[in-house]
């Protein structure tokens, strides 16, 4: 396809994101809301939909939903009403999902998406609260399908964007920005692998300049942001080919095949469900007080983009450094805590963006799981900066701190890692090294300073890394050049 042919069409993308809240209990019962438990252990008569049971709304789930609505700049519906979405599926124990139809918690919001092309505002159509369904596990060996209802009743927020994205890359950037905003709210771990964040994509193409929307495909089974982008790119090409060939695009739901990197048709519009929404009679609608919403608004954490600007200004951090910190709210909070006790911000930043991040990536773990206190961390940085230990030894100590939970000073003391800065002691080592390396010593005397590093290295070896390398350099020079 030529570039000119591609320019004939405009791509239109809208995304539906499902976010699981990590509340202590489920949305309509007291069951623990935990991932990864043995099948059907986090269940009770209510979330199993046993006859006679009734739902009771979890207030924290509602609070989280309002939080998300506000963070996405939505108008908040204080009239809280739930509806039943009726359909049959074995993972849906009641035969209906309790959701919100005509009064979503939030509507008409937006987020500003930063990308390489600059900032773009993507509008949020609506954001509503509902319950998650269970999970089917297919046992092909025994030709059985098993149902795990642990996930049933997990509080879920559906965030529907307007069809404002014009390229797969924009969709990718939108998802990253949205995820970051949601992470800052601390209402979910936003982990796609665990299914706490999920995404369906709607895409259509239309002739450039046309304002009416084209026929869309809905893509499901997207298990990563990269998959969203790849699937959308695949669909752009598929739609283009159809349109250029004068063939009609069929409105349908398609499944992304990660292995083959293609989409397959799943069901057409004609086969789509009629969900027969109607008001959930088991939950009485009520009006949340304006004060409640205002209180939540006041307690909203700083948005990532605001934090980025502030970090750069307040701590004079470089774009690059601040950006890395902001990508993880825990990390940037940790930075700020450290910055209270240690004023060399750039150094803290280097330590966080270096060893700390490396450690997190290697262990695939969160900052919280590293068990690192700001106090211990600053102490370590101080020890390195004072010259008590070298940078290299400092990094070793850091790993030991994480392994043992001990403070840097304790490790230095118990393992005798402090740099030897005592002149007398160092002179003995230096003399020995000069004696043993007469050739190198002569070179320095001749003005070939390249050999200095070698002699420092030899001395370090002799001191088992405990010597202060700067002092060593000075000493060796003085011995050979002044003496």
């Amino acid at each position, binding site marked *: 396809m030529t570039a000119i042919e591609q320019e004939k069409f405009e791509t239109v993308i809208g995304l539906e994101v499902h976010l699981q809240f990590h509340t202590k209990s489920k949305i309509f019962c007291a069951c623990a809301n935990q991932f990864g438990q043995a099948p059907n252990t986090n269940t009770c008569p209510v979330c199993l939909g*046993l*006859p006679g049971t009734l739902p009771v709304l979890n207030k924290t789930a509602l609070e989280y939903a309002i939080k998300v609505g506000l963070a996405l700049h939505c108008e908040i519906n204080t009239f809280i009403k739930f509806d039943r979405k009726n359909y*049959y599926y*074995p993972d849906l124990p009641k*035969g209906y999902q309790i959701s919100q139809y005509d009064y979503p918690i939030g509507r008409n919001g937006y987020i500003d998406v930063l990308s390489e092309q600059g900032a773009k505002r993507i509008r949020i159509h609506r954001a509503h609260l509902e319950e998650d369904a269970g999970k089917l596990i297919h046992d092909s060996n025994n030709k059985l399908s098993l149902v795990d209802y642990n996930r049933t009743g997990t509080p879920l927020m559906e965030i529907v964007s307007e069809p404002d994205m014009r390229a797969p890359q924009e969709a990718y950037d939108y998802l990253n920005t949205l995820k970051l905003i949601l992470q800052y709210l601390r209402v979910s771990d936003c982990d796609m692998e665990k299914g706490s964040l999920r995404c369906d994509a709607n895409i259509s193409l239309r002739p450039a300049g046309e304002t009416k929307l084209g026929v869309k495909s809905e893509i499901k089974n997207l298990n990563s942001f990269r998959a969203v982008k790849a699937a959308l790119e695949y669909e752009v090409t598929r739609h283009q080919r159809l349109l250029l060939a004068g063939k009609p695009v069929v409105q349908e739901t398609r499944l992304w095949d990660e292995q083959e990197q293609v989409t397959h048709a799943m069901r057409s519009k004609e086969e789509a469900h009629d969900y*027969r929404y*109607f008001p959930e009679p088991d939950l*009485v609608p009520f009006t949340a007080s304006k004060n409640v919403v205002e209180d939540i608004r006041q307690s909203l954490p700083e948005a990532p983009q605001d934090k980025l600007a502030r970090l750069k200004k307040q701590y004079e951090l470089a774009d690059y450094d601040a950006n890395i910190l902001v990508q993880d709210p825990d990390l940037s909070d940790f930075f700020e805590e450290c910055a209270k006790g240690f004023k060399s911000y750039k150094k803290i930043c280097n330590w966080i963006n270096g060893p700390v991040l490396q450690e997190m990536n290697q262990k695939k773990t969160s900052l919280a799981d590293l068990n690192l206190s700001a106090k211990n961390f600053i102490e370590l940085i101080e020890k390195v900066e004072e010259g008590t230990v070298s940078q290299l030894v400092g990094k070793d100590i850091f790993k030991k701190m994480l392994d043992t939970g001990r403070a840097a000073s304790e490790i230095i003391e118990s393992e005798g890692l402090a740099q030897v800065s005592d002149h007398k002691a160092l002179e003995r080592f230096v003399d020995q090294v000069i004696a043993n390396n007469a050739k190198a010593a002569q070179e320095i005397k001749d003005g070939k300073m390249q050999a200095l590093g070698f002699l420092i290295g030899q001395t370090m070896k002799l001191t088992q890394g405990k010597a202060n390398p700067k002092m060593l350099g000075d000493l060796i020079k003085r011995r050979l050049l002044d003496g």
Partner: protein
Amino acid sequence: MPYNELTAHDLSELLQKGDVTPEAVYQDLRQQILKHDNSVHAYVRVNDALSFKKDTADKNTLAIPIAVKHNICVKGEETACCSNILKGFKPPYDATVIQKLKNRGIPVLGHTNMDEFAFGSSTENSCYGPTRNPWNLDCVPGGSSGGSAAAVAAQEAIWAIGSDTGGSIRQPASFCGVVGVKPTYGRVSRYGLIAFASSLDQIGPITKDVRDAALLLNLIAGHDPRDSTSADIPVPDYPALLDKDLHGLKVGIPHEYFVEGLDPEVETAVKEAIEALKTLGVQTVDISLPHTEYCVATYYIIATAEASSNLARYDGVRHGLRCRPSQTRKNSITDMFEETRARGFGEECKRRVMLGTFSLSSGYYDAFYLRGQKVRTLIKQDFDRAFKEVDAIVMPTSPTTAFKIGEKANDPLSMYLSDIYTISANLSGIPAVSMPCGFSKSGMPIGLQICAKPFDEATMLRMAYHYEQKAGWYKHKPGLEEKR
């Protein structure tokens, strides 16, 4: 007199004095059940051994076994709404009302028969076969709580609980000559009541007299954190409030409820009851409830819509019946759903699920469900307006006395019309009681219905009590023949 012929408040006094043991009451009930339930068939299960708590704080003064409709969950005991699809379902929990009763030392005597999922007005739609009216075994006991009403009328139970969605407590109470109360929506917890129509369902007492109804309502009413639709409003001491006389009370007589279709015998009895109320100091006022004619249609739209959704969970996946598709079909999950539901649900059940599904479907929702909700609001406003003027409203419970078994079984529409006078209380949420107000020439009980303002069961029961004591119909008992 055998203990099973006494009321709960009489027995409670005897229990207090130590003149009777709970076991003795149970034995007499058992005898009566063994003697008559073969012909009445009020029960689908009677519990053999009842355990009575010893030495509870209130000396077990209420340890009088109770009969429970088959749609109210009793822990560990089959609660199946008399439907094949739920046969064998033993809930691992008690309904809140059962828990409350058990906490007071009141054991469950057994589960009573009902129309499948409470869909019906005759207790003929039960997978366990029909219940018969103790006053005439060829007649229906009414429904859907026909088993509970028949058990009380036949003195096979001292007291019972049922559920009322469109008249399912009051109409059988009327047909069987006992007292039945549909409390205000939200007065009694629905937790553990297997739902028919969630916005209409209420659990309520079926008893031999008004005092027992007041006593039982007191035991089961109150806010339940497990039911968001239950009201957090204090429960008055109903029995204590019965005695105050009726002077100064105003009662409304809605002319829309005394029209064509009303059996003249019923009309006469109800009008005599109104005269009796006047002699007790009640002032009567002619009122109008202009939207009455839309009640039945509105009810059958809303109730079936909610029912179609409430019954979706019976799909064969988790509990109750599961059918493998017949050989001609694929063995897909949809085939399993369809086969299970096709075989598990009875005719009336399927009819209502289909009606409800239709009125919620896209394209029909506005014309049916949504319009139904709007008319419901108008019906409610009729009552709000009326209650600005009066303290209670009096009308017949049912346009006729009990009809013959099989008479309306193949005519759903005429069956639906037998609830024409009871439905409005469910649609508007107000409390209503049915109590005997006479007998037809053929000896069948006639029911009087008294409705009151939301959460004013106290006034309603007080009025019912004074009328009952004056009229004395409660003393009449059916002359049951032992089964040949």
